[in-house]
């Protein structure tokens, strides 16, 4: 264990990271997007059922290490900052592996007045710029619809299929044991688990090159807006960017309805209770701010993963100076 103090990163990798950060800052400076810094500590944790908040206890007060700077940045937007971006550390409890680390570096930005396709274009512009500097040529990104991908593979719409139909697909279309981790609670959370198992096992591996997947199931809206698609199905106005088969960025048409957000927070707590997960107190300051937030789109991108994909590193341990096992 005499080498246990060493970082996982090579000097070349540290320089690559510094170069990436410089390119990102230049990119946003040219586009007049303001860099901001919001606290890593927060008064409330993230509500999403499957985000585990890490807390920090300071005497009588408990803070929550932010799983993303989303809540604080939305309060800034509500205060009238205009377009903003942030690069900083975020924490997600229990997430550790080749492509996960409890603490990682997030790039998050918000664009008032943009629609989702415009934001996706900007994400791709940035990706192209960064990839080119690392000698990777990028073919134009594909843009695909979650529902169409799903229906083409499984023959049913993910937006309307019932729990029974999804269980049936999991049993007949996936390899044995591919959904052994799913407990049937008979609710929307289980529905999401089944959709995730189907999508991540049978569809994601086939996403070649940079691919934007648009319009996720409404039950996976998180803080994005739910709207009807052309077929009258309720979908969440979101995209995820996949590159080299890995999820890299998550963009939303942001929800601005505080009443709807309060209902989602409560609903998440209902799902959390059923799963014996700790409930999360609603962030009242975010709820109060939301009505003031301008119409906007926002996106978050994991920079460590991006660095890993650009440099061809085999795991996050090679791109993060001290990943979880080295702490």
């Amino acid at each position, binding site marked *: 264990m005499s080498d246990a103090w060493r970082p996982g990163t090579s000097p070349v990798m540290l320089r690559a990271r510094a170069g990436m950060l410089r390119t990102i800052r230049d990119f946003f400076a040219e586009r007049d997007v303001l860099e901001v810094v919001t606290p890593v500590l927060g008064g409330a944790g993230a509500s999403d059922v499957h985000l585990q908040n890490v807390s920090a206890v300071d005497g009588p007060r408990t803070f929550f290490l932010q799983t993303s700077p989303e809540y604080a940045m939305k309060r800034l937007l509500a205060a009238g900052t205009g377009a903003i971006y942030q690069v900083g550390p975020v924490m997600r409890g229990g997430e550790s592996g080749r*492509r996960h680390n409890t603490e990682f570096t997030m790039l998050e930005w918000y664009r008032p007045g943009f629609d989702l396709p415009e934001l996706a274009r900007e994400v791709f512009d940035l990706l192209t710029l960064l990839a080119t500097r690392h000698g990777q040529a990028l073919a134009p990104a594909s843009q695909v619809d979650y529902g169409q991908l799903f229906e083409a593979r499984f023959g049913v719409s993910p937006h309307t299929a019932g729990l029974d139909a999804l269980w049936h697909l999991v049993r007949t279309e996936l390899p044995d*044991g591919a*959904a*052994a981790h799913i407990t049937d609670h008979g609710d929307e959370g289980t529905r999401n688990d089944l959709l995730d198992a189907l999508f*991540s096992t049978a569809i994601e591996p086939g996403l070649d090159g940079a691919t934007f997947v648009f319009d996720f199931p409404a039950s996976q809206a998180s803080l994005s807006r739910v709207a009807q698609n052309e077929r009258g199905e309720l979908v969440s106005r979101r995209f995820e960017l996949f590159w080299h088969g890995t999820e890299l960025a998550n963009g939303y048409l942001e929800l601005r309805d505080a009443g709807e957000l309060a209902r989602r927070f409560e609903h998440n707590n209902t799902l959390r209770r059923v799963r014996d997960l700790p409930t999360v107190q609603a962030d009242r300051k975010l709820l109060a701010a939301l009505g003031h937030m301008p119409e906007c789109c926002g996106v978050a991108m994991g920079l460590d993963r991006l660095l890993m994909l650009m440099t061809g590193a085999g795991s996050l341990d090679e791109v993060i100076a001290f990943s979880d096992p080295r702490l």
Partner: protein
Amino acid sequence: MASYSTNEFKSGLKVMLEGEPCSILENEYVKPGKGQAFNRVKFRNLRTGRVWERTFKSGESLEGADVLETEMEYLYNDGEYWHFMKTDGSFEQVAADDAAVSNAKQWLKEQDKFMVTLWNDNPIGVEAPNFVELEVAETDPGIKGDTAQGGTKPATLSTGAVVKVPLFISIGEVIRVDTRTGEYQNRVKS
């Protein structure tokens, strides 16, 4: 036996899965977008050699399996069981059944050493070394001097294994065989 949580799963760990002793081959932490995290784990069933894939809720755990891989010397076959002895000086012996020796059966030569997998002290697998040296028990007469031609003929070795050998090999000679491919390597000068 201790139990292991998904974050302790690593390649080579021996665990019990559905009553079967298994060795973990791969463990991948997966978290789809906003979804529930899980681990996708590949196992080798140590009794059958079959590979299993299964997902686990992150944080789930499995009982460890009391599995030991140890070098043992093959002693003899009593008609039903194959007997092995530990080489650690304890002279302890175990009797392996047909299923346990199936992969190595045709290479078992008395006094040779093999890797034996013990589960709860019972042998469940025997693995031959990559190369073994065995005597040719039966083959067509050797053709003297014919070392250049590419022709081969079948030869039955002292353990019963049948391998293709060059035409110049004759009964009583010792040859070296790759047990992974069953291929003749070379003649061993004695």
